[in-house]
């Protein structure tokens, strides 16, 4: 059972359902989606949040192994791991879920209104409502408290107008008992109640909003349809300010000492998106304490905001906010030691994340321990484990985190549950049954076209009704439709109905990107009995409404052109067949560090064979050089234990001092050539999936006298010296640490994420050894995100001195001789006091960057998986597929992906194992349908195609002297078709005739 239907709960459910488990997904609100559904865009790619979430919602709803139970609360849990009985209270919806079609008429007719929770009070909803347009399930609930019938005994308008007879006022709350083997808690979070800060005027001044309200304000489906206007006078604001750390890092008024981790980056996102949305030039300013853009790609995002988009960043927390007679807000702040007053039209409070209400009670019932802040207490080196065996946690419940981290945690929790229940895999699941495919051969094309408004994403620019009318007149089009959200669940139903009603045999959808939505629609038409390749998709969002925002007429004309082309092509497309692939159930794990070993161990405990390949002579990777976490946990003891477990696990084959020579094959059937160096022996491993956990390395700087002066160390070296009991370090009186050495600079414009925590951890250790030691940490922003903030506070309380420096005035280190004494002198300018300091250091520790492992490029080439601009492996999607590669069956985790702390590597490693298990748990999967084919008669045997195929999918038939496609391997990229000089090679449903038909339709 997964408790909580936000992105974490959704991901955990999907992973488990795909790897052979029955899942009950229980959500307390009327629909799944969580906070992510409320967001406008997501950082750092500025993807539309709903666009990437919605396919997952639908996938959840339609998955045969997932039962979504909304508007329900967990009441009690009894039993033990593997055998829990959960009582769930399903609250009365007063709408019959079986009968409701989601038509929305009841909501239209209902006369009673209340502020919408989903719109954060900025808009209204009815007494009968679905929280948002794409809600899953698209079944309303009746709010008793404002329903006129329930309050006054008459009305029943909804019942009168409901054609489906789905309204049922007699429903009562139901308690159901569900037997499950494991529980994953992802109840999410509440945002901090900003009204506590009366000095910021929240709830008093109309133009002061919380960040989540601002997301709704920006959203096309929000209360102002995505127009950037302020609440008081509905005018577009010229200046917007953000105040950071509202309810975070505040032990006084908010009584929340932790950092909420996500607010800095979301404020940057909101500022950039606001500038994009604004109809007039918009000035933005972010008031902060430290900017914490520690996630992958976030530092570049911050740079872009400041340097390219002109977002101002001002290091000053705001004391109070005043409102003038125009409704503008006056902020007074200190900048370069001068007081400034500035007027803003709108103020956004970057509210922190709090544990969700009522979880305390739930946790008590479940026997799950909470930490001092009321979040779930995770285990040591077990970030998704709760204090109660068989109950796991994911998402923000175990601490503030962003979407990719929540998704990783969700997959990790799924892997823990899968491990626990490995013996009963497939015992409760059902195979998806499709209706037989309709034979459309011989039929004239009958095309149905569905055009999406995408809220106002498309409809706000493109004249959709006009396009629909135009399309109706095109040859072979027998039905044309427009939808507010073509991707929503009710529209899928509608598409199926229309296919049947009009006997459609081709479907064209004009909506968003096929990258995110094609598979959803293909599944829909398959469910309606059509071969899924009888489908064409046109991206009129990215290619029309987004790029031609300011030219709606031309955008509309272009949409017509594109749909006309797709229709022309659709007339010629044919049903295609997908080859079944048998799955090899073994995994290859590259890298024997903590990440690799954790993945390997989890998969083996789930019952899969694992080949673990390590380049070095011992397992452990970089963790061999790490001794303590910031929390004081003993890394070496943990590592030793992990190595033992891996060594004793019979399903894991360990290859040390081993290189990877070659890699070939495809998901389910990979072949990897390895060489075990000591024996000089080469071997071939057959496996179904591969996990890249090749680790990272420590940057060795050339500056600050590193390598030239015996008292200059990297932070990791210092940690080693402390652990070894080096007396020079233990007795040092003056210790200086310099942060961001090799990070956040021109050469490496990323934050290495771990160094601030590492420095604070080392400083605390040194203070333990010698409380009288003077420790100076020279920093740019202290990034002790999440609960690590408490250690930063502890370090300050113990007298560690933190001195900021500016990148343009880096500290200077020199070796000088004074009075015959050798001195290591550090000079630094303090921008707050405007004073220059010198410190004669006994020890200088450099917090150096985490860099990609030297073997990454070679692995990237061998496995044909990409690296990002910083040299770390690049996942398929930074938000929702954080451990997958675009190459199916290959996954990534640990430092190979990006700098991270040990527990984060563990989470990601378990997530990779979970994703891998979704493949390994199956016996058969299906290959691509739209693949290359070679006309034997026309092939001249020149073999050019073989050279250009990136998947080694073409072989040469010596007997017939022609090239042949291995259908299982082909991904349909089209290189061969483009290169073939004799026109023998083509991609199915994308041959010359299809392309020519499209061109003809265009010109």
């Amino acid at each position, binding site marked *: 059972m997964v408790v909580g239907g936000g992105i974490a709960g959704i991901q955990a459910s999907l992973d488990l359902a795909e790897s052979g488990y029955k899942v009950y997904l229980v959500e307390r609100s009327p629909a799944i989606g969580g906070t992510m559904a409320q967001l406008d865009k997501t950082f750092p790619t500025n993807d539309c949040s709903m666009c990437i979430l919605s396919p997952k919602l639908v996938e959840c709803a339609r998955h045969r192994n997932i039962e979504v139970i909304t508007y329900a609360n967990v009441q009690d849990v009894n039993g033990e791991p593997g055998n829990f009985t959960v009582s769930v209270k399903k609250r009365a919806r007063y709408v019959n879920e079986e009968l409701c079609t989601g038509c929305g008429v009841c909501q239209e007719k209902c006369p009673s209104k209340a502020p919408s929770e989903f719109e954060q009070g900025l808009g209204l909803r009815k007494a009968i409502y679905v929280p948002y347009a794409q809600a899953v399930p698209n079944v309303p609930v009746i709010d008793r408290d404002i329903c006129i019938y329930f309050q006054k005994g008459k009305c029943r308008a909804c019942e009168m107008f409901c054609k489906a007879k789905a309204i049922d006022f007699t429903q009562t709350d139901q308690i159901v008992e569900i037997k499950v083997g494991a529980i994953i808690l992802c109840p999410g979070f509440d945002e901090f109640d900003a009204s506590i800060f009366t*000095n910021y005027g929240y709830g008093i001044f109309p133009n002061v909003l919380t960040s989540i309200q601002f997301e709704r304000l920006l959203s096309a489906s929000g209360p102002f349809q995505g127009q950037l206007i302020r609440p008081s006078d509905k005018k577009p604001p010229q200046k917007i300010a953000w105040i950071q*750390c509202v309810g975070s*890092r*505040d*032990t*006084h*008024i*908010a009584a929340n000492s932790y950092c909420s981790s996500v607010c800095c980056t979301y404020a940057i996102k909101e500022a950039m998106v606001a500038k994009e949305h604004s109809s007039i030039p918009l000035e933005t300013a972010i008031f902060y*304490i*430290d900017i914490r853009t520690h996630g992958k790609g976030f530092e570049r995002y911050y740079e872009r905001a400041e340097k390219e988009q002109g977002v101002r960043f001002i*290091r*000053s*927390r*705001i*004391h*109070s906010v005043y409102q003038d007679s125009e409704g503008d807000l006056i902020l*007074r*702040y*200190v900048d370069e*030691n*001068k*007081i400034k007053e500035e007027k803003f039209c709108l103020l956004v409070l970057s509210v922190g994340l709090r544990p969700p209400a009522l979880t305390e009670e739930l946790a008590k019932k479940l026997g799950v321990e909470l930490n001092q802040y009321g979040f779930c207490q995770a285990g040591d080196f077990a970030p998704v484990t709760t204090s109660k065996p068989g109950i796991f946690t994911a998402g923000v419940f175990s601490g503030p985190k962003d979407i990719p981290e929540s998704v990783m945690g969700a997959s990790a929790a799924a892997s823990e549950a899968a491990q626990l229940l490995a013996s009963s895999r497939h015992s409760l699941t059902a195979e998806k049954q499709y209706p037989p495919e309709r034979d459309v051969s011989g039929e004239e094309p009958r095309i149905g076209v569905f055009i999406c408004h995408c809220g106002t994403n498309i409809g706000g620019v493109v004249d959709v009704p006009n396009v629909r009318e135009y399309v109706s007149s095109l040859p072979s089009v027998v039905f044309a439709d427009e939808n507010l959200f073509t991707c929503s669940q009710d529209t899928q139903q509608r598409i199926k109905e229309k296919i049947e009603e009009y006997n459609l045999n081709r479907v064209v959808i004009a909506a968003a990107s096929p990258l995110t939505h094609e598979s959803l629609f293909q599944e829909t038409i398959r469910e309606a009995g059509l071969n899924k390749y009888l489908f064409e998709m046109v991206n009129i969002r990215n290619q029309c409404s987004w790029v031609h925002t300011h030219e709606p007429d031309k955008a509309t004309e272009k949409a017509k052109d594109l749909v006309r082309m797709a229709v022309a092509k659709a007339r010629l497309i044919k049903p295609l067949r997908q080859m079944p692939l048998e799955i090899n159930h073994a995994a290859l794990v590259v890298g024997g560090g903590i990440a690799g070993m954790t993945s390997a161990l989890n998969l083996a405990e789930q019952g899969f064979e694992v080949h673990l390949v390590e380049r070095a002579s011992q397992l452990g990777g970089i963790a061999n050089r790490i001794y303590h976490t910031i929390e004081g946990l003993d890394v070496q003891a943990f590592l030793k234990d992990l190595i033992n477990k891996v060594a004793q696990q019979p399903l894991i084959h360990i290859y040390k001092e081993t290189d990877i020579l070659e890699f070939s094959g495809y998901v389910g059937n990979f072949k990897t050539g390895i060489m075990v160096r000591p024996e000089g022996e080469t071997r071939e491993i057959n496996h179904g999936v591969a996990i890249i956990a090749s680790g990272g390395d420590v940057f060795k700087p050339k500056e600050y006298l590193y390598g030239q002066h015996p008292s200059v160390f990297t932070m990791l070296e210092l940690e080693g010296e402390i652990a070894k009991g080096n007396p020079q370090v233990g007795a040092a*009186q*003056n210790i200086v640490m310099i942060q961001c050495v090799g990070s956040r600079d021109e050469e490496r414009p990323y934050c290495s994420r771990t160094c601030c925590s590492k420095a604070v951890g080392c400083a605390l250790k040194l203070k333990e050894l010698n409380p009288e030691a*003077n420790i*100076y940490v020279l920093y740019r922003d*202290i990034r002790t995100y999440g609960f690590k903030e408490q250690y*930063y*506070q502890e370090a*300050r*309380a*113990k*007298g560690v*001195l*933190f001195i*900021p420096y500016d990148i343009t005035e880096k500290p200077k280190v020199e070796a000088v001789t004074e009075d015959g004494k050798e001195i290591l002198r550090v*000079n630094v300018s*303090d921008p*707050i*006091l405007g*004073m*220059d*300091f*010198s*410190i*004669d250091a006994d020890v200088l520790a450099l917090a150096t960057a985490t860099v990609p492992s030297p073997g990454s490029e070679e692995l990237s080439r061998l496995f044909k998986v990409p690296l990002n601009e910083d040299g770390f492996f690049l996942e398929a999607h930074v938000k929702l597929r954080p451990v997958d590669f675009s190459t199916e069956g290959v996954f990534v985790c640990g430092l190979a992906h990006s700098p991270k702390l040990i527990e984060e590597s563990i989470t990601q490693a378990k997530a990779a194992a979970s994703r891998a298990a979704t493949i390994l748990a199956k016996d058969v999967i299906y290959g691509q349908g739209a693949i290359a084919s070679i006309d034997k008669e026309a092939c001249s045997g020149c073999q050019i195609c073989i050279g250009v195929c990136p998947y080694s999918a073409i072989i040469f038939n010596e007997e017939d002297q022609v090239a042949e496609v291995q259908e299982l391997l082909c991904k349909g990229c089209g290189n061969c078709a483009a290169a073939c000089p004799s026109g023998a090679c083509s991609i199915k449903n994308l041959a010359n005739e299809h392309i020519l038909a499209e061109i003809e339709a265009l010109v």
Partner: protein
Amino acid sequence: MIDLAKANKNLWKEITEESGDIRNCFNCGTCVSGCPAAEADPPLLIRNLARMVLLGLEDELLEEGTPWICVTCSQCEEMCPMKVHPFEVCLAIRRWQSQKDETYIPPAVTEIFQRGHTQPLEKVQELRKSVGLEETPPTIVKFPELLKKFQAMLRETELVKNNDFMFRG
């Protein structure tokens, strides 16, 4: 160039009577952004004063006249997210300065002797006039008899007695 290693690292103990609250400071600037005296010239920058205490910059702190322009409104105290008690720190610095150097008479003390408070009258008088109020605020300045009594009381203190050349009523 200040040699930090030679600074008085126990200064915070001397000044704050060992209350460790000051060490919580993370330089957010809330205290300054809410401080009315931060607009003075030179400005009262409580954050910077606290920082000087923490870094042990004794000589520099002794030279600071700004702690004496604090109007004791307590705004900094209200909103400090780290409970540093900046207002207490400000007062503690005053005490420390006075004790550190017995000959040190902060200019503010003479101002208090003259008009009962440190804030100058000129600005206020203009502002009051512009909104139709009496020019002189209803502080002790308005009541010369009471001011005389007040000054007589001050003359009883050691500080004024020993330095009477500075206090001419």
